[in-house]
C-alpha cells in the first residue's frame, strides 16, 4: 500500500510540474504585452520600460517560471497586473462564489440522479425506465448555457422570481446569496444529473444480476427492497468516480455559466484576465484548477485502493 501511495504521489507531482510548464509556456506566447495594455498605446517608452521592470517582465523566461512556481508552493501567487492586489486575495474572494456554486450544483445533481436511477432500474425496460432514459438523453444534449438562458427567460423575465444575474455577496445575507446561485446551479446540474443517472442505473442493473441479489430475493425481498438495501451500496462505487470528476468539472466548468449570470467567480476571473492580459491571474487560477482536478483523481484512486486491494497490485 505504501509503495502504491508513493507511486501515485510521484505521478501527482510530475503531472503538476508538467502542467505548470505547459501553462507557463502557453501564457508566455500570448500576443500583447501586459505593460502596454495597462498604459495604453501612446505610452512613453521609458515609463513602459519602468513598468515592465516593476512587473518583472524584463527578466528571462526561466527565472520568471521558477519564481512563479516557487511562489505557488508557499501560497504566494504574485501581484495582479490590473487589480494591483495579490492574486491569492483575488482567488480567495472569487472562490467564495465558485466553491459554494459547485457544491450546490453537485448536490442538486446527486439529489436528482439517485431517485431517477432507482426509479428507472426498478422498471428496467418498461415505460418508466424508457422515459427516464429518454429525458436523460435530452439532458446530456442541452448546452448548459442555453438551459441557463431558458431559466432566465422563465424565472426572471416572465415570472420575476429570481434576478437575471449578479451576486449580492455573502454579506447581503445567506438567503439573497443562495437565491442568486439557484438558477446557475440548476443550469450546471442538469447535464451532470443526466450523466450520473445513466451511470448509476447501469451500475444498479449490473449488480442486480449478482448472486447475492438472487439470495436476497429468494429470502422474500421485493425487487425494490433488494435494489435499495443491497444493490445500491455496491453500485455506488463506480458512481463515486463520476461524482469526483463532476466536482472538479463543476468548479472549472462554471466558466460559461458565470458569464451568463454575471457572477464574479473563478471562471469569470480567468476570462477577464485573458481579455485584460492579466496573465499572472490566468496562469494562477488555471494551475489551481488543474491541481484541484488532479487531487480529486488522486484521492479517488487512493480510496479505491483502500477498498479493493486488487487495484494496488495492478498496472494502474
Amino acid at each position, binding site marked *: 500500500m505504501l509503495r502504491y501511495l508513493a507511486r501515485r504521489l510521484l505521478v501527482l507531482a510530475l503531472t503538476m510540474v*508538467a502542467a505548470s510548464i505547459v501553462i507557463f509556456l502557453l501564457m508566455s506566447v500570448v500576443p500583447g504585452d501586459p505593460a502596454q495594455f495597462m498604459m495604453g498605446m501612446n505610452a512613453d517608452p521609458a515609463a513602459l520600460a519602468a513598468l515592465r521592470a516593476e512587473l518583472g517582465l524584463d527578466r528571462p523566461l526561466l527565472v520568471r517560471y521558477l519564481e512563479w512556481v516557487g511562489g505557488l508552493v508557499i501560497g504566494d501567487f504574485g501581484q495582479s497586473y490590473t487589480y494591483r492586489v495579490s492574486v491569492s486575495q483575488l482567488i480567495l474572494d472569487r472562490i467564495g462564489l465558485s466553491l459554494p456554486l459547485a457544491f450546490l450544483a453537485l448536490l442538486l445533481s446527486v439529489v436528482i440522479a439517485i431517485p431517477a436511477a432507482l426509479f428507472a432500474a426498478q422498471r428496467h425496460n418498461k415505460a418508466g425506465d424508457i422515459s427516464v432514459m429518454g429525458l436523460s*438523453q435530452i439532458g446530456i*444534449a*442541452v448546452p448548459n448555457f442555453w438551459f441557463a*438562458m431558458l431559466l432566465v*427567460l422563465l424565472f426572471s423575465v416572465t415570472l420575476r422570481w429570481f434576478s437575471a444575474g449578479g451576486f449580492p455577496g455573502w454579506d447581503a445575507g445567506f438567503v439573497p446569496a443562495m437565491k442568486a446561485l439557484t438558477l446557475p446551479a440548476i443550469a450546471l446540474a442538469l447535464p451532470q444529473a443526466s450523466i450520473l443517472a445513466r451511470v448509476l442505473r447501469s451500475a444498479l442493473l449490473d449488480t442486480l444480476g449478482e448472486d447475492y441479489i438472487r439470495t436476497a430475493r429468494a429470502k422474500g425481498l421485493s425487487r425494490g427492497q433488494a435494489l435499495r438495501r443491497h444493490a445500491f451500496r455496491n453500485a455506488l462505487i463506480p458512481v463515486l468516480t463520476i461524482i469526483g470528476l463532476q466536482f*472538479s*468539472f463543476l468548479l*472549472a466548468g462554471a466558466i460559461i455559466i458565470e458569464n451568463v449570470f454575471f457572477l464574479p467567480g473563478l471562471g469569470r476571473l480567468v476570462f477577464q484576465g485573458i481579455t485584460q492580459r492579466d496573465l499572472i491571474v490566468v496562469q494562477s487560477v488555471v494551475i489551481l484548477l*488543474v491541481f484541484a482536478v488532479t487531487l480529486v483523481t488522486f484521492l479517488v484512486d487512493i480510496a479505491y485502493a483502500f477498498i479493493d486491494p486488487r487495484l494496488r497490485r495492478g498496472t494502474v
Partner: protein
Amino acid sequence: MSGAYSHRPRRYLRNPSFLLGAILTAIFVGLALVSLFWTPADIARLNVSARLLPPSPQNWLGTDHYGRDLLSMIMVGARTSIAVALIAVGVGMVIGVPLGLWAAARRGGWIDELIMRFNDLVFAFPALLLAIMITAVFGPGAVNAIVAIGIFNIPVFARLSRAGALSLWTRDFIMAARVAGKGAVRISYEHILPNIANLLIVQATIQFSLGILAEAGLSYVGLGAQPPLASWGRMLADSQTMIALAPQLALIPGLAIVLTVLGLNLLGDGLRDLTDPRMEAVRR
C-alpha cells in the same frame, strides 16, 4: 438470436435509437451540405427594416435582429458546427489511435508509460478551460477552435485504442501473426485496427457530439468562428440581450444544438448496441 452478427440493414432499422439518431444526424448534415451551394437567403446582407419578422413563406423561421433569414443562419451554423467538430474528431483519431496502438505494442515499456502519462496530463486540464486558453493565446476563430477541441480528443482515442489493442495482443490469431514473422506495426494495422474499428466509430460519434457542444460554448463566449460565418453559439449570445423581446432567436439555435447532439448520441448508442456482441445477451 438469428443473424446476431450479420449486418443486414433490417437489424439496424429495428433499433429505435439508431434509427432516430440516424434521421436527426442526416437532417443536420444534409442542411450543412445544402448550405454549401444554396441557402434561402444571403446571410451576409443585412436588412434592418425586415428585422424580427415572424415565420412566413419567405422566411420559414422568421428573421433576426438584423433582418437575416433565420433558416439560412441555422443552415450555415450547422455547417460551422459540423465542420469544426468533425475535423476535431479527425485530429484526435489521426494522432490518438496510432499513439494508443504504439503504447499497446510496447506495453509495459517506457513508450507506453510516456504516452499514458501524456494522456493523464491532458485529462488534468478542465477541457473548456484549456480550449479557452488556447483560443485566447492564438486568437479566436474556427481553426483554433478545432485545435483546442482536437487536443482533447487525442487522449480519448489513445486510451481507447490502447485498451482495445491490449486485450487483442494476447489472442491466438495475433500470436499466429507474430510467428509468421509480422512486425508490431504490421500487426497493429492489419489485425488490431480492424478489430477495434467498431469501438472507435462509436467513440467518434460521441466525441463528435461533444465537439458540437464545445464549439457552441466557445462561439457563445466569442472565441469560436468569427463573423460573417454564422455559428449557433454566437446566435445564442446575440439573442441574449433580446430574450424578452424575441425569445425565438434564443429558442431556434438552441433547439438545433440539442437535436444535433441528441441525434449523434442516439446514433452512437445504437451503433454500440448493434456492434457489441456482449449487448446481445442484454437485448434478448
